[in-house]
C-alpha cells in the first residue's frame, strides 16, 4: 500500500518539537487508521541518525524502547492515538528549521517513512 507523502506528514503534530536537558521530543498522531507498528527502524534529526535502541516511544502512559517493538511484538496504534518520540540527545537539534525523518515498519504497508520539518 502506498501512503501518500502529504498524509504521512500529517502524522507529525506540528509545533511539538521540544528540546530540554534530557534530550529531544516530538509528538505523532495516527490519522491513517488502526494498525500496528512492527518496528522503529530509525529516527534522523538533521544529520544525526538514531537507531531503534536510542528511540523511545511514549503512548498510553507507557514508555517503550524502539528495540522492544518488532514483528513478533508489534505495538497497537489506534486511529487518533497520540505518542511522543523521545531521544536522549539534545545536540542534534538546532535553532531554526530542523529536518526530521522517521522510518517505521507496518505489517501492511511495509516501510513507512515520514519526513517533516519544524522549528524549536
Amino acid at each position, binding site marked *: *500500500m*502506498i*501512503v*501518500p*507523502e*502529504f*498524509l504521512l506528514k500529517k502524522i507529525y503534530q506540528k509545533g511539538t518539537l521540544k528540546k530540554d536537558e534530557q534530550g529531544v521530543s516530538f509528538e505523532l498522531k495516527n490519522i*491513517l*487508521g*488502526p494498525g500496528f507498528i512492527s518496528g522503529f527502524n530509525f529516527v534522523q534529526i538533521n544529520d544525526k541518525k538514531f537507531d531503534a535502541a536510542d528511540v523511545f516511544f511514549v503512548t498510553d502512559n507507557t514508555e517503550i524502547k524502539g528495540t522492544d517493538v518488532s*514483528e513478533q511484538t508489534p505495538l*497497537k496504534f*489506534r*486511529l*487518533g492515538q497520540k505518542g511522543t518520540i523521545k531521544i536522549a540527545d539534545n545536540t542534534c537539534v538546532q535553532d531554526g528549521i530542523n529536518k526530521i525523518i522517521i522510518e517505521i*515498519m507496518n*505489517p*501492511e*504497508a*511495509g*516501510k513507512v517513512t515520514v519526513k517533516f520539518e519544524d522549528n524549536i
Partner: protein
Amino acid sequence: MKITFDKHSLIIDGKREFIRSGSFHYFRTPGYELAKDRFLKMKSAGYNAVEIYFWWKYHSEKQGEYDFSGLKDVEKVLQAAKDAGLYVISRPGPFINSEVSAGGFPLWLIKDKEVIPRNRIGTEYHYSEKYMQYITEWYDTVIPIINKFDNVILFQIENEYANDEMDETYMRKLYEMARERGIKCPIFHNDAAPWGLWADVVDIYACDTYLYINPNQNWRKDSFCFDTLDNLECVFECKENSPSFIAEMQAGWFDKWDGSGYEHIRKDLSDEHINIVTKTALSQGVTLFNHYMCAGGTSWGNIACDEVYTSYDFTAPISEYGVLEDNYFKVKEINYFLKSFGFTNTEPVDEISVNDEDGIYSKLRKDNENQCKWLFLRNLNDESKTVKILDKYESLIKPYDMKICSVNLKLYACEIEFSDIEIFARLKNDKTETVFLIADENTYMYLSNGDKISGNKKDFDNLKFEEDGKVTQFVFLTRELCRKTWINNDKVIFNADYVAKEDIIALQKSAEIAYFDLKHGFSKNYFKTRPQTNHKIILKDLDVSFCAPEIDTDYDYSGWKKLECSEYDSLSCGLSDEFTFYKGKIPKTINEITLSARHLFAVYINGKEILSRNSYKIEKLQQIPETIQIHLDKKNLNKEENELTILVENLGFDKGFSGETNHPRGLVTFETSPKCDIQFFVNEKLSIERGDNRESDSPYLAKITGHFDVKFREDEIFSKYLYLKNFPYRRATIFLNGVKIGRYIKRANVQDKFYLINAFLKEHNTIDIVVWQKARNIHGSWDFKNEMKNVIIEVGDEIRYQLF
C-alpha cells in the same frame, strides 16, 4: 437506465436502491456456465449486484491484439449477470490488483521501458504519455463492451491509487476517458484506506475496509481494528452529497504461499466476521457495499501474482468450488432483511440510552422510509452481555455477535416498540404481511399493546394480528431452517439446499419442500433424488515418463531464441510463461557461477542437476533478491564445452500494491568466475505444453498421467477435486486436459487439493502432473513407479446437487 444519487443512496430510474454487491472474478471462475451458477447463487442470497474486474492482460497477450472469445468472452459473463437479475459494478482498471500477476497489466506493457505503470515510480508521480496511450487502447476495447449492458450501474477508475503529491492529472484523465467513451453511470475510485483520496475527482467516494489482514491477528480481541469502521460516517463526509459506498467490504481473506491455509482462515473468521462487519457498516449509514470476495476462484494458468497459490478461495461466502459456506447463510439473512425494508434513507440518532460497557457498540438510526428506528448492538466480549436499553428493555447479546433491533416499527396490524428478535424477511401485499422472525430463546418483542412475545419458538410457530382489515402475521424460523429458506420474488421456499432462478430447487438428498406465498399460504412437495453413487475414485494405471528433454545433452535448441543482450530476465527476453529454459555452453575453465532467479529454479550441467532452489522470499512486504554462488565440481565439467541448462519457474509478477509490477522474473543475473560471456538460448513453457512429447534421459522432471471419466447430466450441478495424498515430490504442476490448473509446492504445505474446473472437464479426462524429482537413485520410469507406490491421486466430488 438512469442512475443518479444523493447523500443517502443510489437512485435507479427514480427509485432508491440499496446496492448489495459481491465480487466475482470471471478469469478465476472461467466460462459462462460457472459464471451463471455463481450469479444465481448470489441472487439467491439476496445480492442485487455483482462487481466485475476486467483484466487487461487476460485479453491482451500482444500490444494491439485483444481476445474476447471462448472463456474470455466477457459479454457472456455480463449477459449471465443480467439474466440472473444482477446489476454490475464494472472495474476495468487499468490497474486492478486482485492478486493477479502484475496487478492486471499486460506483460508487453510493463516490458516497455517508456511506460511508467500507473504514472508512478515508488511513491513519486511521473506522467508517462506512452502509458496513457496504451490505456486508451484498453478503454477503447473494453468500454464499448461494458456499454452494451444497461445493468451496469457504476464504473471504477484505477484501484487503490495514491501518489506522494496527489497529482490529479492521471485520475482526471481516466475519468474524462471513461466519459468520452460513453460511460453514463456514476464513476468512482476505490481508496485503499478510508483517507478520502480522489473524492474531488470522482462522482462517488468509495473505499476498502479490511480489518483482518493477518491470520495471526485475533480480530475478536483486537477490537481496535474496528476504529475506522466504527467511524465510517465521518470518513464519507469527504464527499458532499454522495452516498456511503464500501467498494471492497471484507467478506474473507486471501492466503499466501507462506500462509496458514484457508481452513484456518475460514475457522478464524467463521460467520461472525461477515455478520459484524456488514452490520457495523449498515450502522454507519452505508447503502452501497461490495463483499470482496463473494465467490472464490482458482488462479489457474498464469493468473496468480507471486504472493498467492492456486486456490483463491478467499474464504468467500461461495467457495472456490461453488459451495455455500456459513458466511453465505449469514449474508443471506442480512440481505433478506435489507431487501425487506429498503434501508436506503436513514440517519444517525444521537439520543440513545444504552449502558456503556467495554466491548459493546451501539448505534441508533432513524429510518425515514419505514418511519421507525433500528438499534444496532454489537458484543466483542468473549461472554454474553446484557445491554439495558432506554432503562426499559434488556437485550442479551452473544459473544462476537451483532444484531439489528427494531424500535417503534409500525406494521399493518401492530407496532413493535422494541424487539431484539431479528427479522429474517418480510413479504407483503396491500392488506397482508408476513414477517419471518429468527427464533432465539433469549430474545423478546415488546408490542405497543403491552404484549411481550418470546423468541423461544419452534419452526413455523406463528402469531396473527388483525386491525382495520389488515393482517400482520409473525412466523418463526430457527436459524437452521433459515439456512434452507429462500425467497424468490414473492414466494418463500423452505428446506432446499438452494434455489436458483425460476424456482429451480437444488438438493443433495431427498427432501420435503414447503412453499409459502401470501395468496396461497403453505403447500408441500416431496422430491426424491437419485440413489447416491460413489463419486470418489483413485486414479489407477498411472503412466510415468520423463518429460524434460531440454535437459538432455543431445537436445537440439538451435531453434530457440538467441539472447542478444546480457539481460536474461523473462521480460527482457520477451517471454511471459511460468517456465523458462535457458541453455548455453560453458568452458571447463569455469570455477563458479553466481546467479539469481525467481522464483524456483534448477541448474543442470551436462544433464546433471547441480542445484535446485526455491528463492521465493518476502520479508517486510518486499521481495528479497537472492544471489546464489555455485562452485562447479570439475568432474561435472568433463568436456571442453559443457552444456548448461537452467530451468526457472516464475510464480507470477508482483501485484503492485506495495511493490513494482515490473520486478524482473526468470534468470535475473548470471555471472561466471573467471568471467566469461555465455551465449544463452531461451524457450518458454514445459515441453508437454509445447507439444514436445519426446521422452528424456534425465529423471528430473517426470510426468505422471492418469485418466478418469465424468458423466454429465442436465439436471445435476457438481464440482470435482483432485487430491494428492502421500505426495513426496518437491514441486508439481497439474494439467487437466492440457490446461494448467494447479501449482504444488510441498514446502509451503498450503494446498494439496485442487479444483478440477468444470470448464475444462470432458467426458474422458487426462490428468498430467509434472513433478520436479530429486531422488538420485531414479534411473528409469520403473524406479519412479516403484517410488510412488504409496502416492494416492484421488478425484472426487466436492459437491453434487440434483436440480428439480
